[in-house]
């Protein structure tokens, strides 16, 4: 069962890319990290999934139900937060939820339930103007939970949060996914941010999906590069080239081997035997940028 499925989904802006021919497949029950640099088309995609934008071509299905600009019925399964939370600062947290509850014809109990889930019960009567950024973000998620959704669509939910806030949000999302089985689709421009919670990832670049699958499969396809910090990087490069590896000189003190042929410990032993001073040796996790370069490079080659 797919929570989100799109086929050939396209939306351009005055000839600019927006998103092109998008084929998303988000399994029900997954936490899906939707990655891409600024301007990749993440927000555009999310707006299309919420029927906030007209699709130019292609189709969208949420839990098998077709959704489009004119067919919005499946939205009753979806809770959303796009970019910044949509809040009325002059109202209390509770009144903000009450506005949405009335529009949804929800039960009164759903307000307390949502407040408790995001840990805002004690601050419910305070005006949102007095809330911290993290509290607003959590209230935004409470707003998205008012529908008791099967799918939660969040656009850069960690925007502006401090490290503690990010950890807190991550725990909340994991709880929602684990305890309630809510499918979570969240966008981010940082791999490190989603890698701890996402079971699946999609990588978007210039409006096109470069990769989609489980996180393991992404890592398998693009192993982390070996990074070596050493005294004389040029000499280390030469030695590695001798061994048949393809080293890259990053700077005067750092050498990277994107895809080593030998085992790491073997390379390490060889370098030490040749008398190089090795300060640090190990796999450096991919930054999203290097992953992008690899993905776009591969696209270009095939």
């Amino acid at each position: 069962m797919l929570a989100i499925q799109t086929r050939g989904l396209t939306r351009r802006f005055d000839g600019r890319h927006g998103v092109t021919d998008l084929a998303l497949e988000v399994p029900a029950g997954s936490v899906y990290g939707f990655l891409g640099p600024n301007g990749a088309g993440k927000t555009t995609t999310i707006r299309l999934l919420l029927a906030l934008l007209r699709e130019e071509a292609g189709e969208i299905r949420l839990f098998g139900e077709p959704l489009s600009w004119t067919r919005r019925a499946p939205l009753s399964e979806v809770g959303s937060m796009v970019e910044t939370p949509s809040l009325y600062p002059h109202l209390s947290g509770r009144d903000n939820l009450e506005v949405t509850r009335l529009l949804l014809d929800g039960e009164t109990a759903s307000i307390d339930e949502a407040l408790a889930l995001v840990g805002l019960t004690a601050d419910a009567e305070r005006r949102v103007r007095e809330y911290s950024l993290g509290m607003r973000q959590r209230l935004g998620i409470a707003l998205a939970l008012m529908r008791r959704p099967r799918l939660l669509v969040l656009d850069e939910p960690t925007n502006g949060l401090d490290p503690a806030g990010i950890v807190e949000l991550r725990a909340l999302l994991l709880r929602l996914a684990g305890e309630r089985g809510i499918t979570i689709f969240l966008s981010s421009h940082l791999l490190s941010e989603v890698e701890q919670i996402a079971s699946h990832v999609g990588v978007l670049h210039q409006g096109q999906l470069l990769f989609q699958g489980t996180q393991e499969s992404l890592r398998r396809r693009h192993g982390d590069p070996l990074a070596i910090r050493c005294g004389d990087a040029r000499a280390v490069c030469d030695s590695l080239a001798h061994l048949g590896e393809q080293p890259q000189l990053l700077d005067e003190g750092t050498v990277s081997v994107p895809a080593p042929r030998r085992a790491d410990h073997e390379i390490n032993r060889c370098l030490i035997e040749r008398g190089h001073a090795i300060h640090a040796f190990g796999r450096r996790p991919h930054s999203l940028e290097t992953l992008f370069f690899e993905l776009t490079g591969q696209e270009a080659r095939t």
Partner: protein
Amino acid sequence: MSALVRALRAERIKLRHTLAAWMVPLAPGVILLLSLVQLGFAHVPPPGPTDPMEAWKHFCQGMFTLWLFLMLPLFITLQAALLAGLEHGHHQWKHLLALPVPRRTHFMAKLCMLMAMVAASTLLLAVATPLVGWVIMQLNPAQGLTGSPPWAWLVSRALASIVAAGALMALQGWVALRWQSFTVAVSVGTAGMVSGFLIGQSDRLGHWFPWSMPVQVFLRDGVHLWFVLVAGLVAGVAIAGFALWDCSRREYD
């Protein structure tokens, strides 16, 4: 229908602690206070009519002309912009329009809310005008206000002026919802009000211009009363229908 009722209840909550809510009593209050100061303490009474009923009508007419000519267009402009600004200003459309509620419901609720506020303020003025008249009676008997005020006449005219403002409310409502900038709404409203001030005095054109339609109910013994009633209603419904269609097809940020 019930979606609209729920949206209206939501609108009422959104108005808590807002300037827009305070404007409902404040706008007629300013007009009442101005009249009170002007007439209550005027040393030279104007050579007004001697018949008490005529004196009352003259007094009410003066009050409502001030309201309908000056304050109401300003009030409608400001309220429409404030009501729409609640959503434009706080990135609300991307939340509201992603709810499983027909898009037009949100816009319809806004237009209804605008009408309700205009009606409330105008009726407040209608009820308070005789009270202020009574105070003036005590302060300045020379004004000739005696006996009981023409309640039925006053309230029916006030209701008529609300209907005659239909086109104006729908028009300003549409502008405020359609353009996210407060400046656009206020510019259109001000331009209309200034033109209405000139056009409204014309016998031939006054009843054709949305900004000067409401005041025709009281001007020139209401010769154009029925025209502006029908025109305000028909044009109001037509423009409101267009506004709902236009706003519902827009992609809001």
